[in-house]
């Protein structure tokens, strides 16, 4: 029977195989994007807005956006929150539907970067972690440089960037399960978390490199400032710093060794509520607040100081389909009565200084400095990985 299969068939098959291989290689080997970047897509819309008052601008944008009908919003905001924001926007602007693409930030990053490499974009507006937005800013043609929203001026200059604006804060708090940590037993300091008292009872999220870098530098500065007498010479300062860094490395290693490692902050907060661990070291405050609203036994006060704070940013995608709707959404997100209120209502912390999160009163807030941390990202990331994989 096998004799009936002629050699030619095999040859033909071989040709097909080779062709497929070559095609595959050619396909993936193309490192140049398929399409050249288009000119700024916002130009025509922005031209029509010139000189308009905020109210007239909003009306004009709304009418243009209604003609577009929809916008695609990529966000790493958790689903419940994102849906509330979506509903608030759609209620304010009937006829402009928000197509919500919610994904964990890592998934969102992979998607945005892949789309950019291929020269396409599914998003009109992107809203995610500050460091991620900052990295997008450094890659060509992912986000449109845009600083012209009249509402951006109300947020602190520190959270305004060329291609995105901080619209909310994620606040890292140390939180605990009140059934497992009775009142009076709460952790009081960072140092305490590295002691054997909490061995196996605390939790750290797997990807909090910005938290690690900021806390490390903060504690380093604190300890340097406390030295008596203060080192004067360059060499003495370097020696003192090296000694402190050695202590800090041991401290972080001990704290990580005490920890259960969990991926995802919402999951971490919910496992805390369930009692899987007694303390979660890197929790976002708004998730704890949401759980408290369901009467879950979780708390983060009195604070383990300081509370690290990082801005989340909103930006406009370069290769977008719905420029007017994107601009409308962007403006609205930063408006006091718009997205900022919706975020506050949903339990998040808006960036507008006149809308503080009451839950964070009394916290010593230390900003995570995206600009310096992202420029050393590779080094911090490596140190973090060896810490948790060691």
């Amino acid at each position, binding site marked *: *029977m*096998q004799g009936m*299969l*002629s050699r*030619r*068939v*095999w040859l*033909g*098959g*071989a040709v*097909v*195989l080779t062709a*497929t*291989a070559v095609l*595959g290689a050619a*396909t*993936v080997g193309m*490192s140049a994007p398929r399409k050249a970047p288009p000119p700024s897509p916002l130009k025509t819309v922005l031209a029509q807005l010139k000189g308009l008052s905020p109210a007239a601008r909003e009306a004009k944008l709304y009418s243009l956006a209604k003609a577009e009908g929809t916008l*695609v919003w990529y966000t790493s905001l958790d*689903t*419940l929150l994102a849906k509330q924001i979506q509903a608030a926007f759609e209620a304010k602007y009937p006829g402009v539907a928000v197509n*919500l*693409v*919610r*994904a*964990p930030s*890592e998934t969102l990053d*992979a998607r945005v*970067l*892949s*789309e950019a*490499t291929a020269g*396409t974009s*599914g998003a009109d507006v992107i809203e995610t972690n500050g460091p*991620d937005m900052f*990295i997008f800013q450094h890659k060509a043609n992912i986000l449109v440089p845009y600083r012209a929203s009249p509402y951006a001026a109300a947020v602190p200059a520190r959270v305004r960037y060329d291609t995105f604006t901080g619209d909310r804060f994620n606040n890292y708090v140390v939180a605990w399960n009140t059934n497992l940590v009775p009142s009076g037993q709460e952790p009081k300091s960072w140092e305490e978390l590295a002691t054997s008292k909490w061995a196996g009872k605390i*939790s750290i999220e*797997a*990807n909090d490199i910005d938290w690690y870098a900021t806390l490390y530098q903060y504690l380093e500065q604190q300890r340097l400032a406390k030295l008596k007498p203060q080192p004067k010479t360059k060499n003495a300062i370097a020696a003192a710093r090296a000694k402190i860094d050695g202590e800090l490395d041991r401290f972080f290693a001990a704290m990580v060794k005490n920890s259960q*490692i*969990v*991926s995802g902050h*919402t*999951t971490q*907060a*919910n496992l805390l*509520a*369930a*009692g899987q661990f007694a303390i979660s070291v890197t929790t976002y405050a708004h*998730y704890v607040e949401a*759980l408290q609203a*369901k*009467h879950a*036994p979780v708390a983060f006060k009195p604070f383990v100081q300081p509370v690290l704070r990082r801005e989340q940013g909103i930006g406009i995608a370069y290769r977008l389909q719905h420029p007017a709707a994107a601009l409308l959404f962007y403006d609205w997100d930063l408006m006091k009565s718009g997205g900022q209120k919706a975020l506050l209502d949903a339990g998040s912390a808006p960036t507008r200084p006149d809308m503080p999160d009451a839950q964070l009163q009394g916290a010593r807030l230390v900003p995570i400095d995206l600009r310096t941390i992202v420029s050393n*990202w590779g080094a911090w*990331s490596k140190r973090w*990985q*060896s810490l948790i*994989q*060691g």
Partner: protein
Amino acid sequence: MTATLAEAAVRTRGEAFRRLFSARNAIVLLVGALIAYLALVPLVFLFWQTFVRSGHLTLANFRSAYSSVGLGAMLANSFAFAIGSTVLAVVLGTALAYLIVRTDIPFKPLMYAASLVPLIIPGVLHTIAWIFLASPTIGILNRNVFDHVPGLQGHPFNIFSIPGMILIEGLHLAPLVFLLMVASFRSMDPSLEESAVMSGATLRRVFFKITLPLARPALYAGILIMMVRGLESFEVPALVGLPNHIWVFTSRIWTALNALDPDYGQAGAVAMSLLVLTSLGIWWHSRLAKRARAFQTVTGKGYRPRPMPLGAWKWPATALIFVYFVVAVVLPMLTLAYMSTQEFYAPPTRETLSHMSLVNYTQVLHDPFIRTTAINSVILGLGSATAVMLFTAVAAWLVVRTQLPGRWLIDNLAFAPLAIPGLVLGVALLDVYLRVDLPLVSIYGTLWVLFIAYMTRFMPYGMRYASTSMFQIARELEESAATSGAGWFQAFRRIVLPLLVPGLVAGWIYIFIVSVRELGATVVLYSPGKETLAIAIWEKYRDGLFPELAALGVLMILALVVLVMIAAKLGAKVGIREA
């Protein structure tokens, strides 16, 4: 004279031409090209990503992947986990299959279903359920059972350990071995066993000396697939290993991909090592093919299989299956069911039990998003299961039956995607189909990209199911068909295919289920409006909505059970009668 030669040449050319374009060759070529396309595109991408950095060949990615800390422990963990779960799954799966197919165990259909149901529970659900069952702090077993056992100190079950990981993975994979072994035991000529019994051999002796050796192709395929699955498993190491600092290959890959600036090269380097390991496995397995005839027991001879009498072992064996069912299905399902009635998860106490509600179910059932995902999952499951089983049946015939030079290549190509972890496959396909559209259909942003991913990912399983069954069908059946004047297509359709049906149906069911469960590749490839049920569960998990996730999980498992029962019934009608 010259005219005759020319005529002959024309005739030969015409003949060759006709032969070249016969139905058989067309199908063979098409299947070969499809397999090559599915396997090579992501593989080539993986190679390119791992070995090429800014246009130059480099080993830098391997250096950075393997110079990191904790490498020795990572390797040891990976193998301990993979080998442990393989042993557990193979022993359990084989025992269950033997008892149900070849012995006179009571309640057979029930037992058959009991052995299959764990397969239906999505990995992420099963893993979460076990965390809530056997976590040392909040596990129901520890808190609600062992705390009340007098004389027992502390919490004996710690799921966050390698034995815990093995337990979860092994229990979850056993049904896959079960399916492979059922197909093999069913299509096995029992006359050898019967002669042994008649010659006075004990049941045990018959099992180890006759049955098991005859089932070797399926057994080896089972071991091979389990090892690979163990090395490739994602949910268990991520959810159960990671908290206790137990790192394995996939968690390394995942961490490299999960970073803000994903290191695809390093992920590729680790994935490449997995590929080498699985290729070794394939090489070992392919040596069996050379001795294939030794395992052929479905022959032209008529046979009437008779179940082995278990005698005194009848009830202990029944109890064994029952215990397996309770541990692998009932306990996790009860945990999910309990969890689905709560507002947030807390271990059961009198208080939580007095606050049960079905509100999560209402929410899930009224969610239009869930409805869309369910429809997408069913479309993808039906599509990929049918497509994969059809083309792997042809491919298996090609590999097992023909002497086509290089058929090992098709075998290897069809098997290669097994080594590519879902996440890596997802990233590879994303980058490919963002740049290219196939003629006529647009790929990215549609269900097609998921369809291609699933066909690629599950082709190895289809291939194993089909070729394992093919090994056992004696060539004489086809040869007699050919002698009686049947063409290749006719013989394939009328003889080979129907005999293959038990194996193909088993494969179809398996691929349907794993398609519905698939997460690793989907999570990278899905687009808005094209989400699947597994994505919905994943999203709920990432949002910490454990109770809603549990409600969705319970509904999904019930629906899958019904679908699988229908499929099994239909399959039994289409195929030859069950052994």
